């Protein structure tokens, strides 16, 4: 196994995907990996799909920047850039890029169904994340793209979203809606009739008409959509991409980390690195003699301080054994996986200096972690 797994990954990967549940410091780790790429003389961009502005908070960027790409001032030979995912903006530019004429693009974008589609968070966000990744992969300004997935169980859904959309667009009923209108839905064939009636009952007839109009305007554009989606899917499954699970030593974080391990196995993707973040630090201990003499002569406050410090030791030991158990389980599915550790700081990560300190911890040789 390599003596510097994080540095090796930072200089060799084209795409790095971090996943993990909320509260484990996933966004900070993504930023720290970007920092390390820049230290290694390469150009990194970190994209966070998380609608909360946590990456922005951590590196001191303002709010409401949308898809804008911003450079983080660093003293490094390489570069660090950051951006967020604006679903609406990404969808709009995708429509403009793939539309045969500007008029058709406008028709799609003015459609009420399109507007509600791009506002709805679920599937569309996943799909646009994949689309944005396609764009960034084509962008020659960046050597390494780091994708910070949302802190949810379904974070890896975006890997499958392109296929889902393609399936959806090929569905017979969608094809039917796309077919040239012959007097609205009056000529809907007998088999379809009750289905349309049901949909109309639930969402109202106008909504369905709007949907049909959208799908018609959209007709033909889905081929380019699908092509891009397949390129992204292929990149993510190739050796150019590295997947990282970020976890912390708490029972709930480890449960979620196990879930990501099985998701990656199911998707046939290799896990490259586990980041055990927020590990409680180890501190010096008293000798048995010192402890004995302390126990003799302690006021209430001092006794409490000793008790709390003993608690810190217990925390650190428990965390070590919980993480080791997780690593062992994970090594069964992914024998070549590397591990990097970072200790929990007394204060929140809130600026680029603390990101840099985190990067230094992650990049340190395993023996020094």
């Amino acid at each position, binding site marked *: 196994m390599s003596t510097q797994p994080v540095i090796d990954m930072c200089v060799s990967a084209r795409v790095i995907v971090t996943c993990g549940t909320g509260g484990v410091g996933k966004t900070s780790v993504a930023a720290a990996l970007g920092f390390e790429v820049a230290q290694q003389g390469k150009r990194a961009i970190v994209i966070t799909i998380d609608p909360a502005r946590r990456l922005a908070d951590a590196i001191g960027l303002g709010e409401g920047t949308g898809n804008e790409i911003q450079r983080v001032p660093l003293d490094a030979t390489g570069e660090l850039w950051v951006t967020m995912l604006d679903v609406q903006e990404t969808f709009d530019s995708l429509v403009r890029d793939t539309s045969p004429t500007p008029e058709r693009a406008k028709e799609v974008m003015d459609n009420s169904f399109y507007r509600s589609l791009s506002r709805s968070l679920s599937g569309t966000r996943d799909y646009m994340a994949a689309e944005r990744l396609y764009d960034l992969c084509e962008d020659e300004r960046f050597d390494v793209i780091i994708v910070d997935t949302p802190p949810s169980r379904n974070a890896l859904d975006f890997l499958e979203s392109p296929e889902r959309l393609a399936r959806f667009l090929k569905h017979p009923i969608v094809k039917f809606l796309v077919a040239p209108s012959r007097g609205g839905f009056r000529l809907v064939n007998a088999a379809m009739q009750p289905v349309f009636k049901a949909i109309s009952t639930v969402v109202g007839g106008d909504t369905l008409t709007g949907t049909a109009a959208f799908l018609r305007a959209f007709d033909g554009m889905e081929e380019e959509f699908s092509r891009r989606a397949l390129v992204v899917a292929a990149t993510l499954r190739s050796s150019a991409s590295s997947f990282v699970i970020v976890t912390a030593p708490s029972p709930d974080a480890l449960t979620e980390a196990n879930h990501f391990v099985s998701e990656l196995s199911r998707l046939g993707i290799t896990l490259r690195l586990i980041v055990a973040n927020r590990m409680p*630090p180890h501190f010096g201990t008293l000798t048995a003699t010192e402890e004995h003499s302390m126990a003799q002569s302690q006021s209430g406050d001092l006794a409490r301080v000793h008790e709390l410090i003993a608690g810190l030791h217990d925390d650190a030991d428990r965390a070590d054994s919980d993480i080791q158990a997780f690593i062992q389980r994970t090594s069964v599915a992914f024998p070549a996986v590397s591990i990097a550790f970072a200790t929990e700081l007394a204060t929140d990560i809130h600026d680029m200096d603390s990101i840099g300190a985190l990067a230094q911890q992650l990049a340190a040789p395993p023996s020094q972690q």
Partner: protein
Amino acid sequence: MELHPFFTAQRVLIVAGKGGVGKSTVAASLAQLSARSGLPTLLITLDEPANGLAPDVHLEQITVSPGRALSDYLATKGLGLISRQLARSGIMELVATTAPGLDDLLVLGRIKAFENERPNGVIIVDGPAAGHALDLVRAPEQLKRAIGSGPISQQADEVLTMLSDPARCKVMLVTTAAITPVTETCEAADELTEKAHIALAPIIVNKCNPDVPRVDDAILLPAIREAYQYLSLRAAAQTEAIGVLTDSLKQPQLHLIQHHSDGTALINTIADDLEQAIRGLP
């Protein structure tokens, strides 16, 4: 404050908070405590059932799945056959996409139905994670704009009436005592009250570290000074985060200490801590 007035201050309590703050455990502990105090209690989870609840005659739990909410709704409207056809043809997804937020509205509709069935019960909802809570409670209003009339629009009206009535429904935000989650909690609180017009219950500050007494470094043996400094720094950061929360939100706070157990033991311990914290409220 006694437990009964605390739990009956509203009929539906939606517990929300971002990942990692222990939202689901807090929701389960609240339900456990409410049932333990003798109130008929229903814990509603989304997607997956709660783990580790101890059996209690007053406690029931049910899982509402957003993915199945639409077919359940159609079935109750006597459209079960159609619903199965839609599911089989795979276009349920199309219907849901056509009206974003439909799943969320139907989930809230189910919760409202439980509320109607149990006028004297306590309903605790282990809400969706992170920013999704806001999407959930804003879904009825957005759908109403998209769909002018019909059964869905009527459903949206009924749900909105429940959400905006503080005697029927409140949101309980859960955070940890660190600056990033506290900032996000304050933002969520503003949006919930201003945009969704939902009242807030007391805020839960979970996973607090114990207070650290101030002692002179010099009286500590050198080997443990570093550990003491770490404890002090951590305590100061926690005090600062709680200060920000107190300055920003007027809701009372319930502070819960960090525990290392899990499962039933953790739920019971947190229920005990909650009981003490609630009794400490004015």
